[in-house]
């Protein structure tokens, strides 16, 4: 048991993630060809517009559809459907918490690939200042609110039906993911109405921004993701948790350096044990980068599954010290 624990704690997390993310990407983007269907309540961007290859559908798409029903229907019997839908989504979600973002979301994986490309090219990444970070961090809640209010407005007859699934229209996943199955049809502007033109043009712009943004900034889009906001609001009972023992922390900032989302609290907060912030993608790179035994850990239903250790840190983070080679 101890040996198994040491093996897990000493794992090369980045390599594990690369393969795990690739497997999940294949499952969710090409799974449809193998008749895999994980349903349409998945808590990450397995895009429904990737019609042939999809192995499941992002919950935001049916949610926006459901909310756009005429009000008498929505607030009548249909509310039951909305609630069960949310229930299924929630069950999926609590299993991995935000680990869906760091390990499963295909759009997140694509951003990591773009980051890897940048790193290969030797280009440094950009950072936000703390002020920018604070402001940008709020955008996702605004998007979440709009994503709920606009479909409700459609149901109430205030907005055009062309605004249906407003977030999907501007989500980069709609344009990017179908490309992987050779579907170029979403890279177009819809000229059928003024609203459609506006939304699809906005969508194109955001996709362009997504690709360039992800090149200069790690996990660029995740700051703005309404799914991430929704996750955070319901994350309390989740099974997978990121925990910190502040007493063991030296605030050396190694975890903060590793954090793709620039979450400063991971290093500085020594009071809260439940350390997952709203921007967190639970990639666990912080745990892998922590040199203090037991200071950071990932737990599943209160059982520790991955913990920071000195040996693991040295193995992962100290390049070329030649500990495996014979000494002079």
């Amino acid at each position, binding site marked *: 048991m101890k040996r198994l624990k040491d093996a897990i704690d000493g794992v090369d997390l980045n390599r594990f993630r690369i393969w795990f993310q690739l497997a999940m990407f294949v499952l969710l983007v090409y799974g449809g060809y193998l008749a895999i269907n994980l349903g349409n309540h998945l808590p990450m961007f397995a895009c429904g517009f990737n019609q042939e290859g999809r192995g499941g559908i992002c919950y935001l798409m049916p949610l926006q559809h459901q909310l756009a029903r005429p009000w008498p229907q929505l607030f009548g019997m249909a509310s039951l459907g909305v609630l069960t839908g949310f229930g299924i989504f929630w069950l999926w979600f609590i299993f991995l918490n935000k680990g869906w973002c760091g390990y499963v979301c295909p759009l997140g994986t694509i951003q990591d690939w773009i980051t890897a490309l940048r790193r290969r090219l030797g280009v*440094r990444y950009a950072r936000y200042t703390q002020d920018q970070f604070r402001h940008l961090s709020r955008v996702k809640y605004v998007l979440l609110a709009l994503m709920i209010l606009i479909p409700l407005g459609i149901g109430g007859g205030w907005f055009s039906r062309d605004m249906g699934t407003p977030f999907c229209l501007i989500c980069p996943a709609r344009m990017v993911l179908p490309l992987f199955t050779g579907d170029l049809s979403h890279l177009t502007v819809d000229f059928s109405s003024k609203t459609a033109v506006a939304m699809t043009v906005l969508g194109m712009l955001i996709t362009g921004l997504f690709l360039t943004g992800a090149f200069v900034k790690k996990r660029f889009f995740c700051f703005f993701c309404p799914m991430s906001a929704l996750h955070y609001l319901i994350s309390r009972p989740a099974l997978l948790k990121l925990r910190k023992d502040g007493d063991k922390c030296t605030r050396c900032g190694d975890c903060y*350096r590793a954090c793709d989302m620039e979450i400063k609290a991971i290093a500085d907060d020594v009071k809260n044990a439940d350390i997952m912030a709203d921007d967190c993608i639970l990639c666990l790179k912080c745990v892998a980068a922590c*040199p203090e035994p037991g200071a950071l850990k990932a737990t599943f239903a209160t059982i520790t599954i991955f913990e920071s250790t000195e040996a693991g840190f040295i193995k992962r983070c100290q390049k070329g010290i030649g500990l495996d080679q014979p000494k002079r």
Partner: protein
Amino acid sequence: MTNPNAKTAALPYNRSRQAREAETMLDHITDDFDDNPPSMAYFYDLFRRAYCRGESIEREGVRVGTTCIHAPEELIYAFGATPVRLCNGSYHYDQIGADFMPAKSCSLVKATLGMLSSENAIPKTGKLDLIVNPTTCDQKKKASAMMAGMGHSVYELELPPAKESEQARVYWQRSVREFAVRLRQLTGKKLTRKNLMAAMAKTSRAQVAFRTLHNFRRKAPSLILGKDVFLVTNAYFFDDIDRWTDAVERLNAELAQREKDGFCAAQKKAPRILFTGSPPVFPNLKLPLVIEQSGGVVVADETCSANRMLYDMTSVDEWLLNNMVDSLADKYLKPCTCPIFPNNDDRIRRLLDLAKSFAVDGVVYQTFAGCQVYEMEQRSVAEALNKAGIVMLAVETDYSPDDLGQLTTRIEAFLESIKTRKRKAT
């Protein structure tokens, strides 16, 4: 300036009072205790050669003196230069340095100045091409101009006055980049990803060896005495880093064997002491030595001549030059528990954690007379420790041997009180 030792200056170094100061300390360290680890011989010999016989331990190439742990040594190594830590522990130099500083100032700063003003400074590490003086405490800051006045080329590495804000972090990262530019001018070499990586690996290997040694000290009963460990970390100031690491690895191997054999370096019931405060630097190992001569054992420390210098390790997310330099900067600022920063929560948490994980019975807090920042933190540290049920003895001292008797009495009483407490508890 006039040499206060004009009469003795004619004597060969090894017969001078200065050499005898080091020799007396070293003799106590080696002869007052049985069962010194055989692999400590490397360090005993190193100090004997450098301090008692005044042998040269010069190294090739550009030599960069540092006056504080905040100067990133990896950068210095990356440029092919060698860092030498200048913080000095000699009473002889303390007296000479008194000419430069006000009467009530820190012995360490005075001794460092005294050494830098001497023509044949001990340890003989060779002529310095540059002195990096991080702007830490007031006394060190003001020492800059004095060092320059002695003819040294001094670079002030600007450290922010606080460390917690993002502003401070960015400011410091810029300072470190500027420092790299200065080193480039000095050495005429370029900083590359490759040479920085090699330099970081060098330091990192040393740190891993230190951490292993540190972890051995958790064991109760103790496998090694604190006086030896202070000597080991002191050697890091001026020894060749690879040779130092090899020696520590040999020592670690020996301690592993001792552990297997169930060896005890101190009495089983010896009070386990955590040492904090002003840094013990050879030959001023007075206080740790008194603790262990009186039957205690120093099992851990929180000082910038040992633990704080070597414990915290760098993590790099992307191995690109920019990111590596910023990572280094972070390591030198964020985890630092130096009392010059406004808040000392990190230091208190560190002490509590060390006390807990090393099964510590009491804390000895050394303050050099004149080191105001350590004096000012004393109260809050004592309160926090007492709240956690750990006793603390605050000791104000300096490099002079005059208070040795008084110190011994106080330490003995402190250790005795710990023993009584322990007896009552069982």
